[in-house]
């Protein structure tokens, strides 16, 4: 059927495998460029273990090489990842390039690799074998996309802080994508060796890395078959040029370069953009359905859920928060007000695990406020939050944003999805129902398939609240939720918060709209210069002279003095 085109078609498959090793890190937003090094290590190690005769008479010996290559690639990526994954963006890119080059120079100088001359092996990879490998990879990524793990990748790509506040273990997710990338690169190295029959250290150079990255970005990471599209495109272009009679030489790279430029400039998201528009939109569950079951009950009203003792936070010489003693009890709506720079955001950052206190101690839902562990542990314990400046996942739909919120209360479905276990489908449906319920709660169900950027400012704030609610939080922290809202929207928000409290959710919220705070909260804390200056019943606190002074200043001003506390 493909007579005469076997080599071409196999080349597309190999290009796609290489591109998948970039696809998986791009999905998680990591610009990792060490794949050439992983592929090189895997290919050379495989030459040591792959038998020289077909197995059982006919089976391709490369079958032994693939798991070995994947294991070598994954192990190398894990070891390199431990120091390197502290880096991000261009630093991560250049650090991983450096690793790849170190491998190349090492292989060039080692004796068992036969140096720059390289090694010869049998050409055992046929085109059907190559496409079976591609099909397996495509299947793995097809099942990954709409799973809990796939959503965690996307969340880390879009915003690491927001992802960790939703319970995603960012460090683990980045390492997972990095290790998977190493494994796929390892498979590529082995496939390459046994397709071309020869490897040299120069095979796995920086040019290979650039090719893989281009293929992956060109294909796009929004659909699972992006790498195949990219590889098909890049392999076909020179062939088509040949077919239409363009002579080789400089015209080929020129046309390829121009086409690549055109795709990148005019198709944001690569070739997959064309297909992504066809994606099926998940339908809303039947109206009137009961909310999903199996959620842990919230603690009884009045239970202590957080206790802070002498908590303080210093940034160098600046003491942002000092000596805070505070209890939070289940079911209350605790308002926090204070002038700009009073330490409100620092306080909630500590309670939600984004920052560690520098003095004092505290415990929230059984998790100690400390330097280690990360914010996702707080989210998993039942703390969920929004941010002063919305941190939405811009390239996910409104519904997908909220689905990420269910991370902390759902189980990983990926491995079960690979096997089509019904329980995985049940869990995904449950997460979907939970997400829809939150969208309905904040009144955004009719905009579920828009991007956050298409929503009004007030709707974006509501979406952030829906996402936080999807985690079924015990303690919901809202950082200036009414900022930028008009008084009608603020009143609606106030109603929503009181409704949540009736459902048993404890709410801690920072707000500058004092009227709204007084209307909403059951207890009020006032911060100034990092200290609690008043606390208690809202109307009493609001009348406290110290509070009035903090907000309006003292009367000493007419004497020409400004009093600093």
């Amino acid at each position, binding site marked *: 059927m493909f007579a005469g085109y076997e080599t071409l078609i196999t080349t597309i498959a190999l290009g796609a495998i290489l591109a998948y090793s970039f696809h998986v890190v791009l999905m998680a937003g990591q610009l990792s460029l060490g794949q050439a090094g992983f592929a090189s290590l895997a290919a050379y190690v495989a030459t040591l273990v792959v038998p020289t005769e077909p197995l059982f008479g006919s089976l391709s010996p490369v079958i032994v090489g693939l798991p070995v290559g994947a294991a070598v690639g994954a192990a190398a990526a894990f070891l390199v990842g431990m120091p390197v994954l*502290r880096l991000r963006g261009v*630093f991560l890119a250049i650090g991983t390039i450096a690793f790849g080059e170190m491998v190349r120079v090492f292989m060039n100088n080692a004796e068992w690799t036969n140096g720059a001359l390289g090694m010869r092996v049998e050409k055992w990879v046929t085109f059907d074998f190559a496409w079976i490998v591609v099909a397996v990879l495509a299947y793995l990524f097809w099942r990954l996309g709409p799973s809990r793990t796939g959503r965690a990748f996307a969340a880390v790509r879009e915003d690491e*802080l927001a992802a960790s506040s939703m319970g995603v273990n960012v460090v683990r997710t980045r390492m997972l994508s990095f290790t998977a990338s190493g494994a796929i690169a390892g498979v590529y190295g082995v496939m390459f060796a046994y397709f071309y029959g020869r490897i040299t250290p120069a095979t796995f150079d920086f040019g290979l890395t650039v090719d893989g990255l*281009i293929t992956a970005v060109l294909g796009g990471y929004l659909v699972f078959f992006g790498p195949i599209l990219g590889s098909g495109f890049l392999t076909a272009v020179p062939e088509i040029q040949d077919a239409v009679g363009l002579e080789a030489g400089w015209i080929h790279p020129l046309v*390829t370069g121009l086409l*690549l*430029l055109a795709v990148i400039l005019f198709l*944001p998201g690569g070739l997959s953009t064309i297909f992504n528009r066809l994606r099926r939109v998940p339908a809303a569950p039947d109206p009137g359905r009961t909310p999903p079951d199996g959620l842990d009950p919230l603690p009884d009203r009045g239970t202590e859920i957080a206790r802070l003792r002498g908590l303080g936070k210093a940034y160098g010489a600046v003491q942002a928060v000092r000596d805070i003693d505070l209890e939070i009890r289940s079911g209350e709506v605790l308002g926090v007000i204070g002038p700009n720079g009073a330490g409100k955001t620092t306080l909630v950052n500590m309670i939600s695990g*984004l920052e560690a206190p520098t003095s004092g101690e505290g415990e929230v839902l059984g998790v100690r406020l400390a330097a280690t562990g990360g914010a996702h542990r707080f989210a998993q314990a039942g703390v969920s939050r929004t941010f002063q400046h919305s941190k939405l996942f811009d390239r996910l739909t409104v519904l997908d944003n909220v689905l990420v919120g269910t991370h902390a209360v759902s189980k990983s479905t990926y491995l079960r999805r690979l096997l089509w276990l019904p329980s995985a489908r049940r869990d995904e449906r449950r997460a979907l129902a939970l997400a829809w319920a939150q969208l309905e709660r904040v009144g955004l169900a009719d905009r579920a398939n828009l991007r956050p950027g298409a929503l009004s400012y007030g709707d974006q704030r509501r979406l952030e609240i829906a996402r936080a609610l999807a985690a079924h939080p015990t303690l919901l922290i809202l950082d200036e939720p009414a900022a930028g809202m008009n008084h009608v929207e603020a009143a609606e928000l106030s109603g929503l918060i009181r409704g949540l409290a009736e459902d048993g959710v404890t709410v801690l919220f920072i707000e500058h709209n004092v009227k709204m705070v007084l209307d909403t909260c059951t207890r009020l804390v006032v911060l100034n210069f990092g200290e609690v200056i008043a606390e208690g019943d809202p109307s009493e606190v609001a009348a406290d002279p110290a509070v009035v002074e903090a907000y309006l200043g003292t009367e000493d001003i007419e004497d020409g003095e400004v009093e600093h506390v």
Partner: protein
Amino acid sequence: MAQQLANGVFAGSIYTLFAIGFTLVFGILRHLNLAHPAIFTAGAFVGIEVATRTEIPVWILFPVIAAFGALAGVLVERIAFRPLRGRDDEHFAGLISSVALGGVVIALLQARYGTEPQSFPQEYFPNQLFEFAGIRVTLTQLVTLGLALVLMLGLAWLVSATPLGRAMRAVAENPTAATVVGVNVGRVTAGTYALSSGLGAIAGALLALNLGQAGRELGASIELIGFAVIILGGLGSLWGAMAAGVILGLAEALTIHLFDSTWKSLVAFALLFAVLVLRPRGLFGHVKVREV
């Protein structure tokens, strides 16, 4: 030994000139311009052609190459980066579009000059040899070092003491705020690319002058060294890049002296790797406070 170290300094000065193009654009605009190595190569080829055709003296040749590079840099920004501004995938897309444009530039060089390496005309530059304290130095090397020093000092002066430099620093700090106070960000962007690519083109011609010839892979051969220099020096730090270029040149020279030239680039990348892991802001970079 001393001879090797001297050679290291000369090589380092070319690394620095090349890498400053990367670091300037990244430091001010947060673009990693992967078309830079192609401009570097083009600088060498254009220099050779102009020298061959017109036989103008060197001190006119280099301003011509710089002007060519500056123009090419402005075009790179217009074609590969400006259309992406504001897109969610601006950073990844910019890498790919600049790689693609770099490929186009190399293809055009092939169209004009073929696949054979090009050489400066015989006797174009006097091949004089000097000897100081037992170290042999060619006139080319001295001119390279001198020109690199003058250009780097000139750049440092430009960035620290002129209105354009001030505007560049403002854009680096905060483009939106710079626009608000009246900085013409479009012009600063064009100026940054012009400077970066002008220096890159000169660096390419200098390397060709030192090697005697230039092939299409000239830029690719130095690209990774350029990454190493900008990271070692701290991304965006001019003085850091200058120091790091020379440090790398010396480290390579020492490796060749102590081991073997095949290990040369391992040292550069091992150094780079170690610095990234132990001190990500580079040897001379500033601490950037992460925003929450």
